[in-house]
């Protein structure tokens, strides 16, 4: 630019030079940028040919090529993929049972009574002890014990596969499906990540370099059934769906029901990606490129470290930040009484008409409202609220205190007393798949997109679909029975 100290003469001179440059530029055939890129590449190739020697053809990456031919072959590509992911989920679910139980017994069974006693002996009034220990501490303890072990197993395994170079091949195999939905093949990787945790899945969409496809991946990530929702699915499927068939089929049928819900989630992912790319995201930028890096032995320790710090701790920290106030709200709503009934009871009564209309009940809806911070506390909250509403005080630990029952049968009889039918169970499973993402995820979406509008869309789209689907199921169900 022309500086302020320049004389009129030099200004005129500079303008003449600029005009001259413009004239020359217009005489260049084709695009200037292109010529520059071409020149850079040929210069780089010249330098490389002088400095790099290639002894024969031995440098041909034959092992890579063999692996690639197998994992992307028509015959073996998809079976290998399914097998690997089934293995990963199985390891996550079965492997996290034991540490989850240990954490729960440490944080809930041992530390919780100690804290309660400690608070009493220090002289806290009952309400302060209730908010801090029964509300905030217990909610956080649930979230940590349910969330931490699966994430600490799933994320490192995922990162190892990523590091090895297999995940880009999955994107390569599946891209055609995603292309038909108007999305990017790399979304298969972020969806997979979403099965671990939606917040982590949303962060993982950074690998998609095309803005439109990235937004699609962010908004639809919630349709991947996350870790916090798997336990709900398994419990409800075992109690209500598995019990519909003879005992020796029960395990298979309930597992099938959960898999069906997860598959439905993938269907909704593709469907809403298709709809989004043709409506609200029509004008956004779209490019495609997928690099398939060479395979390399994963760096195990580094991977463990980064996945624990970057993903697990990141997600856990946000979940804790949101679970603390949620615990307080749950406890307060169950313990502040207005006109003889607690706020929670009023809310359940108010939500009941809408909820029953779509085949759920007020307790479920209220649980989903107070459990926005973390899906993990849905079942404990539902149990606590059901006890409060039905007044069956032989179970539970008092108003506003979340708990889980050891025996499945006890849970079922409690829920049946709360008016649950098979329809309620089916719709709860559907609603667990199709509702707003947890607040951690919503906040992450807001951070990643930088827009409250997209965050709102990502929250309201699945919620609207959830009400629509449960409503339709309820209508059809009632029509046939």
């Amino acid at each position, binding site marked *: 630019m022309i500086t302020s100290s320049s004389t009129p003469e030099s200004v005129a001179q500079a303008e003449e030079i600029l005009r001259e440059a413009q004239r020359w530029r217009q005489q260049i055939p084709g695009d200037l940028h292109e010529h520059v890129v071409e020149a850079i590449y040929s210069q780089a190739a010249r330098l490389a040919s002088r400095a790099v020697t290639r002894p024969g053809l031995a440098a041909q990456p034959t092992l890579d090529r063999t692996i690639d031919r197998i994992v*992307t072959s028509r015959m073996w590509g998809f079976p290998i993929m399914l097998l690997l992911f089934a293995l990963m989920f199985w390891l996550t679910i079965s492997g996290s049972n034991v540490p989850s139980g240990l954490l729960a017994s440490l944080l809930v069974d041992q530390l919780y009574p100690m804290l309660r006693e400690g608070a009493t002996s220090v002289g806290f009034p009952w309400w302060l002890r209730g908010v801090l220990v029964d509300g905030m501490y217990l909610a956080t303890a649930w979230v940590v014990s349910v969330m931490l072990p699966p994430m600490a197993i799933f994320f490192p395994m995922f990162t190892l596969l990523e590091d090895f170079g297999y995940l880009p091949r999955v994107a390569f195999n599946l891209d055609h499906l995603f292309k038909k939905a108007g999305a990017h093949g790399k979304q298969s990787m972020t969806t997979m990540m979403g099965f671990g945790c939606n917040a982590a899945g949303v962060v993982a969409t950074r690998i998609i370099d095309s803005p439109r496809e990235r937004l699609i991946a962010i908004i639809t990530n919630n349709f991947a059934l996350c870790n916090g929702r798997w336990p709900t699915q398994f419990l409800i499927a075992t109690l209500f769906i598995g019990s519909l068939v003879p005992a020796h089929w029960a395990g298979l049928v309930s597992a099938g029901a959960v898999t069906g819900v997860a598959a439905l989630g993938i269907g909704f992912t593709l469907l809403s990606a298709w709809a989004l790319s043709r409506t609200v995201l029509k004008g956004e930028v779209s490019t495609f*490129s997928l690099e398939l890096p060479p395979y390399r032995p994963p760096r195990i320790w580094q991977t463990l470290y980064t996945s624990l710090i970057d993903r697990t701790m990141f997600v856990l920290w946000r979940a804790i930040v949101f679970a603390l106030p949620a615990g307080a709200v749950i406890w307060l709503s169950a313990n502040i009484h207005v006109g003889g009934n607690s706020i929670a009871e009023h809310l359940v009564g108010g939500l009941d008409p809408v909820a029953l209309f779509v085949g759920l009940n007020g307790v479920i809806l209220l649980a989903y409202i107070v459990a926005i911070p973390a899906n993990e506390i849905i079942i404990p909250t539902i149990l606590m609220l059901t006890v409060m509403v039905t007044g069956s005080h032989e179970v539970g630990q008092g108003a506003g205190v979340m708990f889980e029952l050891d025996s499945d049968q006890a849970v079922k009889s409690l829920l049946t007393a709360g008016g649950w039918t098979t329809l309620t169970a089916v719709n709860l499973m559907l609603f667990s798949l199709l509702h707003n993402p947890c607040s951690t995820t919503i906040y992450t979406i807001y951070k990643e997109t930088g827009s409250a509008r997209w965050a709102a869309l990502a929250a309201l789209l699945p919620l609207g679909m959830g009400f629509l689907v449960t409503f339709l199921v309820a209508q059809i169900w009632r029509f046939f029975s």
Partner: protein
Amino acid sequence: MLPLIFIICACAFGLWICWPKVGLLARRTQARLLAARSQREDVLKHVLKCEVNKQPPTINSVAGVLGVTPNRAADLLSGMEQRGLISHQDGCLHLRPSGRELAMHVVRAHRLWESYLADQTGVAEAQWHPQAERQEHLLSPQQTEALAAQLGHPLRDPHGDAIPAAGEELKSDVGQSLNTASLNVPLLIGHIEDEPEAIFAQLSALGLRPGMKACVTGKSEGEVRLWADGREYKLSPILANNIAVVPLPEVRAEDLFGEEFLDRLKTGERARVVALSPACRGPERRRLLDLGFVPGTIVEVEMTSPLNDPVAYRVRGSVVALRSEQARLIQIAREVTVPATA
């Protein structure tokens, strides 16, 4: 208590409506003023385009362009005459100097904005024209100059229209309609008309862009067959009429038919990149260049996805997957001359 709340609400409501600059009334006035100005500028643009293409503008043609009744158009034109933008002479509309200057600015802003959308944002092609139709009324002359400088003073917009330099004459549309082009003569697609939108959307969905080399291979009742970028397009005469072409005497028809594109390459085959099609532009073009698909590069098909698309290519030592509609934008030659670098 209740009256107080009512008064506060009423005050808030009143302020929301009457607040200067951001209130509802002020916004409405601004929007109305902008709409009126946009309409005037659209008329000027229409008259200018008619002038350079030697078609006389009439009240009816103005009404047609604006989508209003002829009576409304007549009102508008007399208002513009009072403002000194146009004049009626010999029963014909003419631009006064101030009107001409404004019209040139609007055309320049429109075409520059289209170039900006095409080259720098990657906004879908069908959106370029509608967005530029809005933006042309919002850009000031200074902003237009800054935009031109940022884009490197482009000469043509993405539809192939010349972008007039500030203070320069507008050039008339070049080339003949594809319908009148003779058979088997190499042609350059010089311009694709962006109005009406539905026709343009169909052409852009087919992948036809200005700058492509093409050749009419057959004509029949209700169909024009066009060869471009290694494939045949069947167009209805209505579509073909919106494509303007100029002959390319220095290109032979055989060369045109011999052009091959990357999507035809089979697994294990090698080829040399000749060029990127002009149909590939903006961020997508830069992305391909950055990945190493520059003229002279040797490309080899590494593997094909189980669903046939995408295909992975080995280019300069790395493996990159492209979708078929991207691969068909890369022109290749089968004869692989061993480059000096190998």
